């Protein structure tokens, strides 16, 4: 008779165990379901946010295009009933327009003026470039009151800053002074760049002499075959230009500078930037 109740207890116990296990599984599954449901909600929110951001950007782009076209066609702004949101979008589009304009001013060689000390001072940058390559930028800190005066700068000493300031009435017309300074700096940067290119691309041509301002250049050419040496002096006396004002040739062969070929080369060197002139001269067989 002891078997039957034991069986009953055992089976009851195992029933309880099964119940407990399945409740655990149930709870696990239930919490897993909750977990997954939460994840679904999070992903849905993320998706909606991304969609909203993308839509806003697209609306902004479209509005910007329309505003650009309006500017170009000089149409009257169509200020009919606008929703609050589209007013905000318009402000945002205008923001991007203005940023682009400021960037453009900078790119075309603008002076990027920043007023400092409540208008008593200013900082300007002068960008230089030669042909398609942008080169160094130079900076000036200027006092505007009581008189216009340059307080700090990183302009190289061989550029006559004070002379230029005087000659160009820096007091009355800052822009004209900056334009002249920019001309000098850009011409210097251009001559310097030409010298760099000569050294890089024309190893057969020896640079005998050059100066910091790059206003004097002496090159040694070798005539192919005869191996005659030709000394060429380029004088850039106009410091606002990148082309020489004088070309002088000297050679052991006294006839050479007067030959038609070298007279042509002389003209070429006067009218073409030196690194390009050398390419032509090589092609023509004048130099090695």
């Amino acid at each position, binding site marked *: 008779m002891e078997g039957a109740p034991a069986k009953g207890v055992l089976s009851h116990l195992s029933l309880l165990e099964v119940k407990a296990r399945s409740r655990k599984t149930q709870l696990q*599954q239930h919490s897993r379901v909750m977990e997954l449901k939460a994840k679904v909600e999070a992903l849905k929110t993320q998706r909606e946010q991304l969609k909203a951001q*993308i839509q806003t950007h697209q609306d902004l782009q479209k509005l910007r295009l329309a505003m650009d076209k309006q500017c170009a066609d000089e149409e009257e702004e169509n200020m009919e009933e606008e929703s609050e949101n589209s007013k*905000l979008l318009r402000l945002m589009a205008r923001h991007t327009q*203005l940023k682009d304009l400021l960037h453009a001013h900078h790119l075309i060689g603008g002076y990027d*003026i920043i007023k400092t000390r409540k208008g008593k001072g200013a900082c300007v940058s002068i960008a230089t470039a*030669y042909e*398609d390559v942008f080169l160094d930028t130079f900076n000036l800190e200027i006092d505007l009151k009581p008189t216009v005066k340059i307080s700090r700068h990183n302009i190289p000493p061989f550029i006559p800053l004070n002379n230029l300031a005087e000659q160009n009435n820096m007091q009355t017309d800052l822009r004209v002074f900056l334009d002249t300074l920019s001309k000098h700096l850009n011409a210097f940067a251009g001559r310097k760049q030409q010298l760099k290119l000569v050294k890089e691309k024309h190893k057969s041509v020896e640079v005998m002499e050059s100066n910091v301002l790059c206003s004097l250049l002496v090159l040694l050419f070798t005539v192919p075959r005869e191996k005659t040496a030709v000394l060429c002096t380029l004088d850039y006396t106009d410091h606002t230009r990148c082309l020489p004002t004088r070309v002088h040739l000297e050679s052991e062969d006294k006839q050479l500078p007067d030959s038609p070929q070298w007279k042509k080369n002389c003209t070429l060197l006067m009218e073409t930037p030196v690194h390009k002139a050398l390419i032509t001269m090589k092609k023509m067989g004048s130099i090695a």
Partner: protein
Amino acid sequence: MEKMSDENTEEVKVLESEIERLQAEVESLQHQQQEINKDITFHYSQQMENALVFMCGQRQEGGKEMVMSRLKEELEELEEDVKLQTEINGITLNSCTTKTLQNSGRKLVQQLSLSGNCSELVFQVEFQLSEIKDSERSKRTIGDLNVVLDSSDLQNFSSFLSRVEESRDLLLFFRTLRTFSDRCDDRSRTFQQFQDKYPSVIALPGGPRSEVMTLNHPKLPGCMLFIHWSVDVSREGVVTPKISLLTKIPERALQLFPSQAVGGAAEAFESLLRILGPEAALESIIQAVSLSQET
């Protein structure tokens, strides 16, 4: 018990596949957003960020009024800045549109289209801009420069324009444009001043922006002096004003008054120019023609 377990497994499966689907959607939207971001080359200011967040439907402190008024303030600052740059650069830009052709971490290539004017000279400029970032510095180059100038003063400018498009010297173009514009403004201001001061003697047949000013005393209708003031631009961008005097005097008058003063006027004017400079030289000629006693 079993049945509930099955149901749960079903639900789990359904949820898991929905999650997979949503993740794929989110990924593709993120990719789309990345593409859009490539076109935006400026970091948005804090106010722009706030506005963006607002537009996406998220509430913020202060609400819409705050976002709008702060953005308006920032816009005013930007407008001031544009005015400042316009004044110091001597160039007015009306529009700038940018198209990003390539934007990979190291290299940025954009196509820019600008329109504006420098005093009376209206331009449209298009160019490609490449920026390559190195570890220490970035290299900026211009590609494919195209310039259209909308103006009547153009013969002097065309050989310079074709040279500058070839060399792609964007900065040289704008520097030269400004100098050329300044010299043209000098001319038209001087011509206008003289016309205002001596209206009976001076005429500007081509208008105030033209190169020619005529001098003629009303009592001597057949005799005319022409001042030709051209502003030349060399291929490399050197701007040179040239002023010369031409006379139109009937043969008969020359025969009656064979004086050097009349016949040799052109050369004499050149000397006068060298000594007195353009304005004073012109004024003395005008006074001579108008037989004026003023000094």
